[in-house]
C-alpha cells in the first residue's frame, strides 16, 4: 500500500510538472538535449540546446523550463520568444515550424572545485548528451554512459549520454576538478613585502643607533 501511494505521488508530481506540455504537444517530441558545460574560474557556463521535432502544423507552444537554483545571467540564443523570468527558471513561447526547431539558451552557475548540477525537464527527452570542457564531467545516473571524447581545437572534451529521460526525472551531472581562483597571493605577497621592508627599516634604525 505504501509503495502504491509512493508511486501515485510520483505520477502526480510528473503530471503537475508537465500538464501544459502534455496537453498542447501532441506530435511534438524532443529528440536531443545537448548540454555543454564550460568550466571557468569559480563558475560554469552551461549552454543547453534542444532539438524539437514537430510532426503537425506550425504552432506556438508555451513552455516553462526550470533551471538550477543558483543559475544567473540566462541568455537566449535561439528559439524562445518573449522569455520571462519565473520562480524556478524561465517561461516563454517556442514557435515551432513543421519539422525540426532548435532552441538554445545558456546560463551560469557559481561553483567550487566540485559541483553537482541537477536538471529536471518538463518534457521527455529521447537522448541527452553532456559535453564538458575544462573539468571532469560524469553523469551520476546509472543509466548514463560515457561516450568517446571529442577533440575540438586540440582540446579533449568528455562526453556522457543518457537515453529516455522522462519529464520530471532528475538528471544529476557531477563536475570535478573545476578551476577555483585563489585570492591569497595579493595579500600574501604584500605581507611578505611588508615583512622585508620592516626588517630593513629595523636594521637601519639599529645600525644608526649603534653608530650614535
Amino acid at each position: 500500500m505504501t509503495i502504491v501511494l509512493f508511486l501515485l505521488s510520483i505520477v502526480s508530481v510528473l503530471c503537475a510538472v508537465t500538464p501544459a506540455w502534455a496537453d498542447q504537444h501532441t506530435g511534438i517530441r524532443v529528440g536531443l538535449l545537448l548540454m555543454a558545460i564550460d568550466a571557468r574560474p569559480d563558475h560554469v557556463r552551461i549552454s543547453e540546446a534542444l532539438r524539437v521535432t514537430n510532426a503537425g502544423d506550425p504552432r506556438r507552444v508555451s513552455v516553462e523550463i526550470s533551471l538550477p537554483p543558483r543559475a544567473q545571467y540566462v541568455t537566449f540564443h535561439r528559439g524562445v520568444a518573449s522569455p520571462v523570468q519565473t520562480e524556478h527558471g524561465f517561461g516563454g513561447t517556442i514557435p515551432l515550424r513543421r519539422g525540426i526547431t532548435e532552441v538554445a539558451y545558456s546560463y551560469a552557475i557559481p561553483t567550487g572545485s566540485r559541483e553537482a548540477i541537477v536538471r529536471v525537464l518538463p518534457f521527455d527527452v529521447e537522448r541527452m548528451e553532456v559535453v564538458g570542457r575544462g573539468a571532469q564531467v560524469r553523469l551520476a545516473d546509472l543509466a548514463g554512459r560515457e561516450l568517446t571524447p571529442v577533440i575540438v581545437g586540440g582540446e579533449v572534451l568528455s562526453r556522457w549520454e543518457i537515453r529516455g529521460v522522462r519529464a520530471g526525472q532528475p538528471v544529476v551531472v557531477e563536475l570535478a576538478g573545476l578551476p577555483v581562483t585563489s585570492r591569497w597571493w595579493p595579500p600574501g605577497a604584500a605581507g611578505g613585502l611588508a615583512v622585508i621592508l620592516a626588517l630593513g627599516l629595523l636594521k637601519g634604525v639599529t645600525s644608526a643607533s649603534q653608530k650614535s
Partner: protein
Amino acid sequence: MADLGSFALLAGLVVCVYGVVAGVIGIRTRERRFVETSLRAVRAWAALMVLASGTLMFALVTRHFRLEFVAAVTSRDLPLVYTVAAFWGGHAGSLLLWALILGLYGIVILRVLRSSPQMYAPVALVLLVTAGFFTWLLAFTSNPFTVMQIPPPDGRGLNPLLKNPWMSIHPPTLYLGFVGMTVPFALAVAGVLTGLTAEWIKLARRWMMIAWIFLTLGLLFGAKWSYVVLGWGGYWAWDPVENAALMPWLTSTAFLHSIQVQERRGLLGAWNVSLMIISFVLAIFGTFLTRSGVMSSVHAFADSSIGVYFLIFLGLVLASSGWLLLARWDRFRQGGSLDALVSRESAFLLNNLVLVAAAFVIFTGTVFPIIAEAFTGDRINVGPPYFNQVMAPLVILLLVLMGTAPLLAWRKADAQSFGRAVSAPAAVAILAGLGFAALGVRSPGALAVLALALFVAGAVAVELLHGVRILRTHGEPAAVAVGRLLLNNRRRYGGYVVHLGILLILTGVTMSSAYATQVQVTLRPGEQTSLGGYTLRYHDAQAWRLPGLQITSTTVSVSTGPRPLGLLRPQHVYHEVQDQATSEIALRSTWWNDLYLVLVGVSPDRRATFRIMVNPLVTWIWFGGGVILTGTLIALVPAARRRDVPEVRRDVAVPAGAKAQ
C-alpha cells in the same frame, strides 16, 4: 588581472607606511639615508599606482567583466574613447585616478626639489601620508579590482550622460587641479619646517599655478559639459560639486596674488601658508562631496559610504597643519608691515579678503543643507538666488581691484600718479557704461560688470603702454618694445592676459545670465516660430532603433531674415539598458549668441515640442578659458633675463611714464 591590481594596491599601502616611518625617522635623526628611502618609497608607490592603473585600463579595454567595476561602467558596444573615459566613470576608478595623478606629481616634484634637498623629507612625508589615505580607501573600501564570481555576458555600460567628449577630459583635468593642490600643501609644510626662502616662494607659486590652471580648465570643461549635455541651457547652477571645485579655485587665486606680496615685501608668509593649506583641504572636501554621495548633484556619478573616512582625514589634516603653523609661528613674525594703506600690497590683501570671503559664502551655502538636516531633520537647499545675490557685489569689488591694483605702486602709491594712470580707464568705463545703457542694457549688475570689464582692460592697456614708453626711451621701436616687454616680464604680462580671460568669462556669464531668452513651443510639421532674430521651421520627426537605443530625431531649419543658416537636428534618446532618457541638444554658436534647441518630445501625430533658447555671448566664456590658459603658460615659462633690458616695475611710487627704477 584582479590579483595583480589588488597586489599593486596592497603593496602601495605597505610602501606608503614604510615611507612615512622612514621619513619621520629621517626628519628626527637627520639621517640622509632614511630621507632617501622615503623618496624611493614615493617613487615605488607611484610605480605601483601606474601598475594598478594600467591593469585596470587593460581590464576595461579587454572587457574583463569579472571585475565589478568593469561590468558596471563598460559594455561590449562602448567605443574605445569612452572605454578609456570609463576609468573615471565610476567611484573606484576615479579614486585610482586621484592616486595615479598624485604619484606622477610626486615623481615630478621630487625631481624638481633636487636643487632644494632640505625640503625633500617633509614634501615626501606629506605626499606619502596623502597617498596612504587614498591607497587605503582603494584597497579596503573602494577596490576597483573586486571580482564577481560570475562575470555577466555584457556590462551595464557607461552612464549615457558621461558619453560626451567633454566628460572624457573634464574629470582628469579637474583631478589634475584637485590633486595638484597636494604639492603646494606639501611645500607649505616643508616651508613651515625649513623656512620660507626665495626658492620656496618660487616653487610654491609655480606649483600652485599649475594646480590652478588645471582647476580652471576643469571647471570650464565641466561647465561646457553641463551646457551641451544636460539640456537645460545653462552651464553653472551653483551645484554642490561645482561649488566644491570653485572654492579651492578662489583660495588658490588669492594665493597667486598674495605670494607676490611675500616675494616683493616679505609679508603675508603665514597667510600664504594658510591659503595653501586651505586650498588643499578644500580640494579634499571637493573630492569628498563628489565621491561620498552626501550631496545630490548632477556632476556626482558615484555614491559610496566613504564620506566618514574623508571627514576623518580632513580633520587630521586641519588639526596637524594648524598645530604645525602655531608651533612655528615665530618664523612668521619676522616680516615687516604695510607701509601705506593705499599701495599694491594693500590692494592684493583686499583682493585676498574678497576671494576668501567668496569661498566662505560658497562653503556656507554648500554645506548649509547638511547642517540644516543634522539639526532639523529637513534638508533645506540654498539655491542660485542666494549665491547670485551674495557673489554679485563681491565680483564687482574684485573687478574694481583687478583694475586698480596694477596701477598702484608697491609700498606707497602716489595719489597724483595713480590718479593720472586711472583716469583713462575710468573714462573709458564711464563712457562705455553710458553707451551700453543707451544700447538698451538696463540691468545694473550687467552695466557694472561691462563697464568695469572695460575699466580693467583699459588698466592693462595703460600698464602695457607705460612699459612700452619706458622701453622706447631706450631707443626701441614700438613693436620691438612690446615684444621685449612681454618676453622679459612674462609673469606680469601673463597675469594680465589671464585677467583679460577672466574679463571675457565674466562678460559672457553676465550677459548670458541677464539677457538669455527662451520659449517652449509645440509645432506641427511645416510650422515655424521665431526667437531672438532666428526663425525656426520644424520639418519632420523620425524615429529609429539602434542596439539598446530608441532615437527620436527632428529636423529644424534655421534662418535669420531671408538668409538660411542651415539645419538643426535635436534628438531624444532612450537608453534601454540604463532605462534613462537623454536630450541631444542642437546648438548653433556664434560670437554673439548661441541658438540652443532642445527636443522635449514628439506626439504620435508628429507634433514636436521644443525648448528654444538664445543665450548671448556664451562663446566668450569658452574663449576666455583659452585666453586664461595662454596667459598662464606665458607666466609659467621662466623669463630669460637679460642685463641690457630694464625690468619695468612699479616697485616704488613713480608717475606713469617716468623712467623705471
